[in-house]
């Protein structure tokens, strides 16, 4: 007896190279992914769903190639175009696309109607238990909540044991309150069944929580594909940095390059001169005089009131105690004096706008957007019009790749 979903030891390897013109929209997407969880991330209408449809064989690309584990699903040059029925790719649609005239059980059984009745019942029972659908077998989709409908859609897709499961904006139709719970559930299902998942989302938090690898989309193009850490710490362009929530983006000239292993810095670093301020950044192979762009995420800046000395310990971004001594000498680096010029209370956190002493903007404007947890804000008495010191931990200064 085969197991549901067939535990997959090896992550699916997906190669995608697509070109498709559609009503004035042009998709040109190329990426490779071989992680258990991959997220296509980008704004609405950037071609993510169209990519899914091409991978599943529901839309035929004008030109391109799609291969899964080396098995060619589509190749316009070789004239290969497998129908969706033969691709072994599951699809969970944004609105779930359940069969409204069939019960939950009939929905789940739909793809395995050829199995012997006993086996079919066993498999359906296992999936219903796994997806917590017990007791709902005789209900119709219209009688279920959004979350339940989604679980039926996933169970239905898993019944045919796909090699890869595509999920199109799986949580966008659901309450934000239950999303976190559903995220955990999805990860748990993936762990249990070991099925590869490729999901589409325009929500950064969701993409980050649910994926190991991310493919960043904009206007029909792939801006960057890589591990989620790479996307965050080394964005390929200003657009990627903006999409991933790095509110503070600057252009600077490389003033100093300390290569790894050289005296004075075992890991090496760069000194970047923005014109109004200088910061140290992790080492990348640039030369003195190069122009680069860099960004700092608002939640990675540490802000203390002026005259309070060292920044608070225990924020997590401080250099660790076991780092080489040379590192620790740099605790005072990247500290910029200025004034808080505005604030927005956002429930669990405050967004503060910070103008540097000799910054780009005059009074009322700001150079840095900083996010401070609620309790830190109150403990340190940070408020509008107070002078402060912003500390930009070196590891939080992300140098943007590509053209500045």
């Amino acid at each position, binding site marked *: 007896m085969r197991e549901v979903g067939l535990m997959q030891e090896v992550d699916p390897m997906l190669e995608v190279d697509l070109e498709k013109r559609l009503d004035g929209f042009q998709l040109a997407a190329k990426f490779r992914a071989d992680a258990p969880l991959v997220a296509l991330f980008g704004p609405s209408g950037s071609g993510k769903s169209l990519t899914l449809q091409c991978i599943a064989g529901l839309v035929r690309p004008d030109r391109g190639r799609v291969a899964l584990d080396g098995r060619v699903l589509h190749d316009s040059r070789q004239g290969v175009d497998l129908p969706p*029925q033969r691709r072994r790719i599951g699809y969970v649609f944004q609105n779930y696309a359940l069969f409204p005239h069939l019960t939950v059980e009939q929905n789940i059984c739909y793809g395995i109607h050829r199995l012997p009745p006993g086996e079919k019942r066993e498999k359906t029972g296992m999936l219903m238990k796994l997806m917590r659908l017990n007791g709902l077998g005789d209900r119709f989709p219209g009688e279920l909540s959004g979350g339940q409908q989604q679980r039926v859609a996933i169970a239905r897709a898993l019944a045919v044991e796909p090699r890869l499961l595509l999920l199109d904006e799986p949580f966008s139709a659901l309450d934000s309150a239950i999303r976190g719970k559903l995220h955990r559930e999805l990860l748990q299902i993936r762990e249990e069944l070991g099925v590869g998942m490729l999901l589409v989302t325009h929500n950064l938090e969701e993409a980050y929580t649910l994926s190991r690898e991310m493919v960043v989309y904009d206007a029909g193009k792939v801006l960057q594909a890589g591990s989620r850490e790479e996307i965050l710490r080394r964005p390929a362009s200003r657009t990627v940095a903006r999409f991933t929530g790095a509110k503070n983006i600057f252009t600077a000239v490389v003033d100093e390059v300390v290569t790894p292993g050289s005296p004075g810095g075992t890991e090496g670093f760069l000194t970047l001169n923005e014109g109004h301020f200088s910061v140290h950044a992790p080492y990348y192979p640039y030369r003195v005089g190069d122009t680069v762009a860099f960004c700092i995420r608002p939640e990675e800046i540490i802000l203390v009131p002026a005259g309070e000395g060292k920044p608070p310990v225990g924020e997590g971004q401080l250099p660790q105690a076991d780092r080489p001594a040379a590192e620790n000498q740099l605790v005072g680096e990247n500290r910029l004096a200025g004034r808080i010029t505005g604030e927005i209370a956002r429930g669990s956190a405050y967004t503060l706008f910070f103008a540097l002493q000799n910054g780009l903007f005059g009074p009322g404007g700001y150079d840095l957007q900083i996010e401070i947890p609620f309790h830190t804000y109150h403990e340190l008495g940070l408020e509008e019009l107070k002078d402060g010191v912003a500390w930009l931990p070196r590891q939080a200064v992300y140098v943007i790749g590509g053209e500045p």
Partner: protein
Amino acid sequence: MHAVEPIKATAEGAELMPDLFPLFLSFKVATLATVISLALGIGIAWLLARRRFPGKDLLDALVTLPMVLPPTVLGYYLLVIIGRRGPIGRLLEETFGITLVFTWQAAVIAAAVASAPLLIKAARAAFEGVDRRVEDAARTLGRSEMGIFLTVTVPLAWRGIMAGTVLAFARALGDFGATIMVAGNIPGKTQTMPIAVYDAVLGDNMPLANLLVLVTTVAAAAVLIALNRLERSAFQRNRHAGG
């Protein structure tokens, strides 16, 4: 004259059944015509709703035309095509020895051609109303295209198809112009109910006209109620679909 005899019999109130022959014939013709419309119409409706192909506009116009043409014009076209000198008529006569014109079978053809467009229009709209993503979902689950059509598309389009079938049946039952052109007005052979009513009124046989009209109305109402029941029972099953 043979044709006058049964009418005389009615006038004397001796036997009712021969007078009701036009009614039976009409229901037989309309039922067969509706079956033919369904068999051909569902496929055409699906093609028009779901496929792109050269000549689609032409096919669309061709299946709509019988709805706009006067029935006698439609009947004339049919006469030209299936008449003894027409292309299909001659072929049938030469190869099989079959003559279609002025038979009840010709009445079936006339009623089918006149009523099919109503069914095609309704079924096409119903197919277009089926969420393509639901069909796509079925594809990714490995079902064959025919399997998807029978288990997803038709059940979800069921109400529209039924509504079209009811309309087509009513249109077939009531056809006068096209039928009289190709099947004629032969009492006891091709005289359908609408023609018999016309004949009776023309012959000043009001009791017969009244009888035919009354029985037709009751029978038609019964058929409509039955079909509506059928449609609603299917809807009941789909109640939870939310539309």
